[in-house]
């Protein structure tokens, strides 16, 4: 086992000011995630799970406390430095897919490589490989509007993994999909876990959380439950 944990949060606090009110979204969260774990974050709305997700995804910085990502303290990095960390270490999968409209699947997947400074040929090759991995090798030139929801989410997954990140953050990845397609998407995410990528799922559906090896539950900015489980295997009926 790798000695350094992938994620280590030490007493992370995040407060916002909204108008005159101070919202305390995270009130001292500590968390350690090892390599190869799949973590589901659950909790009612307002529990702070989105804030935790943003913090873990380096989209946001903690107000206080520390966040060590693969041993590197990222809690005080600048916006530009955080962007570079995101590009190298983290892939995102969103509920609403967030693909660039009127842009082909291949180009969407190439996007992270573009900002990582990967050259044109290399970029094409890796993007094509990533799309083949999610079973879309024949739809490279399709634009999002020509793809079904499940296919769009698979493009998003290909985009998340093309940069060979250590972590994939999936925010309600099946929220906009029917149950059949949801299972397909979960199967792909599980296969990534098997390859050693740490997958973090934010969901409010217990059925989806059941596919993770560990579930934490947030309430009012605190972790109130943290348990490990045997993940439910996503079986795609053939």
């Amino acid at each position, binding site marked *: 086992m790798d000695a350094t944990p992938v994620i280590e949060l030490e007493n992370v606090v995040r407060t916002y000011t909204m108008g005159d009110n101070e919202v305390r979204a995270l009130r001292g969260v500590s968390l350690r995630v090892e390599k190869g774990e799949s973590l589901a974050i659950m909790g009612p709305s307002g529990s702070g799970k989105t804030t935790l997700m943003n913090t873990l995804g380096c*989209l946001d910085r903690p107000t206080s406390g520390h966040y060590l990502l693969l041993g590197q303290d990222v809690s005080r990095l600048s*916006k*530009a430095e955080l*962007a570079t960390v995101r590009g190298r270490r983290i892939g995102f999968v969103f509920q609403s897919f*967030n693909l660039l409209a009127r842009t082909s699947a291949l180009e969407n997947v190439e996007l992270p490589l573009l*900002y990582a400074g990967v050259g044109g040929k290399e970029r094409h090759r890796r993007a094509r490989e990533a799309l083949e991995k999610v079973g879309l090798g024949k739809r490279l030139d399709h634009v999002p509007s020509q793809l079904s929801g499940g296919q769009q989410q698979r493009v998003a997954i290909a985009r998340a993994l093309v940069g060979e990140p250590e972590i994939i953050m999936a925010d309600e990845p099946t929220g906009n999909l029917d149950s059949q397609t949801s299972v397909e998407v979960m199967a792909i995410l599980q296969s990534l876990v098997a390859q050693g990528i740490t997958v973090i799922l934010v969901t409010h559906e217990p059925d989806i959380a059941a596919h993770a090896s560990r579930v934490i539950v947030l309430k009012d900015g605190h972790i109130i439950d943290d348990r490990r489980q045997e993940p439910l295997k996503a079986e795609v009926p053939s």
Partner: protein
Amino acid sequence: MNPFTTFKTAFRALFRNKLRSLLTVLGIVIGIAAVITMVAIGQGARQQMAQVFEAMGSNMLVVTSSSQNASGAKSGAGSSMSLTWDDVQAIREECPAVALAAISMSARVQLGAEDQNWNTQLTGTEPDFFAIRNWKVAEGAIFDEEASSSGAPEIVLGKTVVDNLFGEGANPVGQTMRVNGKPFEIVGVLVAKGQSPQGQDYDDAAFIPAHAFERKVQGGLGGRFRGQVYISAVDEDSTTKAADQIAGLLREHHHIDEGEDDDFNVRNLAEQAQSKKQATDTNTTLLAIVAAVSLVVGGIGVMNIMLVSVVERTREIGIRMAVGARPIDVLLQFLVESLALAAIGGGLGLLGGYGMAEYLSKHLDWPVLFPGSIAALAVAVSAGVGIVFGLYPAIKASQLDPITALRYEA
């Protein structure tokens, strides 16, 4: 992100909104075309002024006698015959700001050649006259100082006179012709000078030595002559000084007391030309300002579209940031987009301005000058417009928070 992909991304974004991009570009096209046309017109006017100035004679002043007042009837400028040959000699010798001075007396005369005749303006003058007027011979030579002082029957012809007496393009140097019936030898033909600003044909003229003029055409009276003195100052800045020196000298020679009116007139043509040139420059500047205003309006159009574009593409910006775009990457992307809009507009505007300038010069006969530096100006100005008006929207885009941007609903 390397520059090439930045450009590619920018152009693709512009291409996605063809009509909108086109209309935005149009604003810049009109602005740049207007500026280019105005500069071309201004340059043309300047050049024309310079040519007129050149044809008239450089650093030139003209001294005339003032009007004679006989029993209340004023006979007009020059009629008093107050200027003497000695005055001219004194101007030459005693005014340091004067380089050259030449007497010029004119009359309409009938010229006759073998089988043709022609009525023209005959001027009796001295050889320096041609230097003062920047007028060179095309054939032969000007009568020399000796011929001038002895009043030799030699004549120098303007191009129009030659054309009418001897036929187009003939070289009559060496032939003898008649001036008011008296024989003169043609010693030179002047280069064509074209029209004066008033439309008078400079080339419809003939010149003989001043003494020959007095003897054979129109006599003077007791050392006085009926005509004017052409003077050139030593340099461009000395024309006013020369005018003052001449006036002082003539007042002294003519014994004019303080408070009495001059019996002569000094006209500073160089100064008149200068003020005319300044008026032209002022007009050009005003036109250029109007054109620049339209360019600014075009620039505001670019800014407007870029701001709309940033808002519309908030989510795209969020996605790009999530996958690793740094603020500077986003800033550059939008800046390159506005730069591209402005550059395309600048290029088309340059063509438009060139076309307009060509049209004005061909069909409306406007003096238009289109130097290569205008092209460089257009490129620089449009790039500047793109950067200046694109910077604010680009900064706005780069400062978006990725979390908010990702959640933005269009």
